[in-house]
């Protein structure tokens, strides 16, 4: 069951990525072109998924709609992962006061409810892709740190690592060649699930007007644009929302599948 769903999710993700990358070739219209004669057209021959309140082609906007969010989500999660894992490795490997210090910082960042914190940072920094990534990184790196630290502590107790220390291997080479390869499966799974979560946060922020900004064709922005109209024209929110949902569902399913492959049952990684 998981195997089939896992493979299916990979196929779906590849399709979503290809569509996003080649959006300019595939989409029938310029996503920002306003066909003023044909606003809120419903499904027609010219506009397969209808047009929005400004007469823009929905299909083209949906095709473009994943680009910014996916890019931001992946970038932000990669940066969070690098910072968080780095901190977690240092903290778990060296222990002592450094560990206490890093753990305290991690606890502080984890004590703020993520949504409230992200809204506040994004709000204070102002709109823009760079600021959005920064807000996501600040509010999510600590999650990586805590889990990676716990994994490092487990690996560190392995007899062969202790042996390497006695044999005089440098800390750096132990970390690079033994600790990191050992915790890599966990990091990859964590990365996958966290990309899914970042996408949910970005979607929420963009919907609130604090993330990706209009007129950028983005799934959440499209839903926000439709807030005054969706009750009479449900198609305005159904397709963009479904696109977000399928993307995140595929990422989460892939995460589950990876967990099976690597045979990791750590419940920490949710």
């Amino acid at each position: 069951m998981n195997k089939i769903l896992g493979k299916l999710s990979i196929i779906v993700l590849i399709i979503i990525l290809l569509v996003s990358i080649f959006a300019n070739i595939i989409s029938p219209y310029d996503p920002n072109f306003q066909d003023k004669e044909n606003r809120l057209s419903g499904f027609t021959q010219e506009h397969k998924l209808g047009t929005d309140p400004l007469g823009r082609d929905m299909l083209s906007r949906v095709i473009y709609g994943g680009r910014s969010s996916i890019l931001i989500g992946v970038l932000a999660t990669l940066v969070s992962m690098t910072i968080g894992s780095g901190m977690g490795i240092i903290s778990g490997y060296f222990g002592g006061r450094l560990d206490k210090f890093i753990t305290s910082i991690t606890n502080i960042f984890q004590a703020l409810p993520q949504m409230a914190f992200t809204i506040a940072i994004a709000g204070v920094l102002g709109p823009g892709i760079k600021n959005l990534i920064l807000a996501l990184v600040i509010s999510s790196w600590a999650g990586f740190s805590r889990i990676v630290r716990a994994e490092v502590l487990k690996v560190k107790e392995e007899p062969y690592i202790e042996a390497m220390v006695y044999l005089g291997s440098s800390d750096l080479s132990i970390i690079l060649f033994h600790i990191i390869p050992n915790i890599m499966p966990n990091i990859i799974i964590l990365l996958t699930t966290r990309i899914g979560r970042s996408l949910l946060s970005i979607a929420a922020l963009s919907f609130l007007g604090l993330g990706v900004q209009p007129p950028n064709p983005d799934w959440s922005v499209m839903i926000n644009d439709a807030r005054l109209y969706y009750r009479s024209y449900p198609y305005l929110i159904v397709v963009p929302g479904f696109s977000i949902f399928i993307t995140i569902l595929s990422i989460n399913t892939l995460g589950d599948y990876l967990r099976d492959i690597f045979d990791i049952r750590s419940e920490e990684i949710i």
Partner: protein
Amino acid sequence: MKEYIIEKVKSIFIVLVGISLLSFLLGVVSPGDPAELSLSKYGYSPTPQEIEARRVEMGLDKPIHIQYINWVKNILKGDFGKSFSTKENVTDMIIRKAPVTFKLAMYSIVITSVFGISLGVIAGINKNKPIDNLIKLITNILFSLPTFWLALLFILIFSEKLGILPTSGDGGFKYMIMPAVSLSLITMSTTAMVMRSSMIQEFGKQYYTFAKAKGISKYDLYIKNVLPNAILPVLTILGNFFGSILGGSAVVETIFALSGIGSYAVESVFSKDFPYLQAYVLLTGLAFVLVTSLVDILIIIINPKIRLKGDIYE
């Protein structure tokens, strides 16, 4: 035990200082001049002299660490400053708005607990059977739904099509159903997953094999023996969730026009009402820390035998 409590209090203190620093820093990095923002009203721009006077009055001429200390002192007195946009005391605004969010969070945590725990128990007992797979599929789907989209779909279905639930405003129970359900889905599915795996872990323990061998009824076995043990990790995450729901209500409050602390936090970003935003972050953080610490203590009271591990300085 005593050592544990001292360590715990110490770490809570550090966290509280930390979140107050972070909230303070939000104000420091926020764009615009606080003195000017606090004087500006619709259609009125203050003169440079007024701004200068206000700057001194607000203590903005002092070095940054003194500003922080004064800020904390005021907060300890219950004074979060005045809102830049409504000129009202932020404390009064929070007191007025918090009950709405709190009510929403209570409903959500009840939904999260009841459905999350039940689904998790059912899945755990029927491990790897079709019903377990079905529950897994459902929780995976719920876990991937954007809250705001679901909330809008709810409005389309239950208000527009069926006309059985009101779309906005805060009234009684009926008004809270859609917001609370939308807000609960992710936490509920996570609770179910954790409950399931916690049950399954108990199945590997000696008392379980023993009780099963004795041939006691399924009800006694699962509900009386396994559940009380398996539920402890779930309590911890429920505590976490209550905090994160309190701080995660912005989207739902905005869609359903509930005048809680979250929807105004979003407005405060647009109206550059940074004192409010700072108070919002600090208070939701504080609530989060208090609730999770209470749950930790509660778990120790329920089961003092638990090894005091998994905590900050293990």
